[in-house]
């Protein structure tokens, strides 16, 4: 576990030594801020529901950008060989990198905490729902990070890793709005697979174990698949 933390430490610092992290954070804030606040005063309600409804799709686009380099870059540069010949296990590496990506997701959300803070001055904000929403957002970031990590382990090309992860994440994010296209028989399954549906539940303030299990199992599946890919290489 100590080794995993060291890897986490290195990967998380790496995000902030290049300007890309700041650009991603700035764009994320600009897009969420604009989409959220442009309609906020029209609805005249002191709540973040409209902010949270943006997150499944936005995270599906941003998290792959965050995770794409984690393995692909190492494999491409060759530092993967150095990493694997240090006394660390596959598990240490995967957990360290995964936590770094989730922590970056948290860093994306951190500045948006100012929204509920300021909104609480102009109206009666329900803090319980807000906290649940942020918790859900973190869980979703973890699920997407698991998918992104897996995509990154597949290839040495970061762009391919990013696109593969984006396709999967966006699919999970919007599939419940496309139920029209699916046969009746698998509708339940499709709804269950939808990240959006599960996130919306949590963001309403309903902490149902089914939703928690969903996100955690997606993350776990991603990490487990990554482990299999690493063993195969």
């Amino acid at each position: 576990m100590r080794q995993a933390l060291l890897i986490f430490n290195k990967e998380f610092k790496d995000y902030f030594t290049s300007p890309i992290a700041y650009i991603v954070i700035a764009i994320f804030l600009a897009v969420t801020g604009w989409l959220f606040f442009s309609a906020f005063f029209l609805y005249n309600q002191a709540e973040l529901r409209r902010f949270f409804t943006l997150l499944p799709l936005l995270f599906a686009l941003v998290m792959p950008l965050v995770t794409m380099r984690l393995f692909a870059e190492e494999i491409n540069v060759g530092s993967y060989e150095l990493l694997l010949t240090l006394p660390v296990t596959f598990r240490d590496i995967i957990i360290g990198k995964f936590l770094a990506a989730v922590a970056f997701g948290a860093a994306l959300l951190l500045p948006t905490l100012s929204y509920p803070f300021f909104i609480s001055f102009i109206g009666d904000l329900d803090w319980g729902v807000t906290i649940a929403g942020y918790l859900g957002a973190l869980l979703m970031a973890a699920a997407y990070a698991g998918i992104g990590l897996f995509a990154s382990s597949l290839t040495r090309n970061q762009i391919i890793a990013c696109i593969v992860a984006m396709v999967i994440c966006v699919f999970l994010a919007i599939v419940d709005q496309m139920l029209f296209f699916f046969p009746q028989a698998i509708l339940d399954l499709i709804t269950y697979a939808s990240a959006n549906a599960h996130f919306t539940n949590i963001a309403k303030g309903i902490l149902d174990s089914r939703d928690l299990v969903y996100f955690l199992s997606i993350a776990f599946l991603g990490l487990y698949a990554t482990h299999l890919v690493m063993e195969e290489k």
Partner: protein
Amino acid sequence: MIHVEGLTKYYDDFCAVDHIDLDIKGGEIVGLLGPNGAGKSTTLRMLTGYFQPSAGDIRVKEHSIRENPLAIKRLIGYLPESAPLYKGMLVYDYLEHVARIRGLGGAVMQQRMQTLADMCGLRGIMHKTIDTLSKGLKQRVGLAHAMMSDPEILVLDEPTSGLDPNQIVEIREIIRKIGEQKTVILSTHILTEAEATCDRIVIINKGRIVADGSTQELTAGKDRQGRVQIGLLGAAAGEVVGRLKDIAGVSAVTPEPEAVPGETRVQILCRPGIDARADIYAAIKATDWVLVEMNQEAQTLETIFRELTRES
């Protein structure tokens, strides 16, 4: 110290390493020699736990690479070919990261980093980003990486490839200094390098070991066939071949293309372990040919290497 048994690696259908057996004692500097694609890097990568062997086993001390790769990784410091370090990090940050993963910390770590900075000449570049370094400097950072935990075994894959002559000498010096106390395994395709730094040379070709021993043992090899070239005036090639091939110590005589008009050149292959030069001279003396040149090809590591790794 290191015991390799039946080590084999397949890439799909291609057999890169084919049943290698090797025993390396503590304190040896072993050079793996071979043409490109002979399986040197693959062997080292299996030894350091980067690749899983397709068959066979590697034991380092009492650990097996199959059962306890982590224990072996702790014992081995490894510098892959062309030192693929994390580009964006500072040298200091990188070495500190490695030190922590290797389980060092606090004052011990600081002490170790100071020692390595002196040993590898990194004092002036500790606060530079790795991707701004020249190839030679990167290689030295890679060496410091490999030696971080003061490992008992050091594995270096082509440590001097791509360096200029001065840098090569520097790196060799460092390797020899380390080799006084540690077991060093290095791969190279530069023969003089192996001769200059290694106690023992293992030549690999097409995934198999074709020679194993010290430089002296390899060049003095009793079962080597000596080659003698002679140049004669006033002789026809056919006649020369006919006369010389009957000498007891000679196993074959082959005419060579005429370089100077009128001069006949032949190459004579002696029987293993026999110096037939005196008999050849005596045979020529009995005729009226004029001997203008006689030359025994010296057995250097290079001739042996070429002989053993030639495409046939």
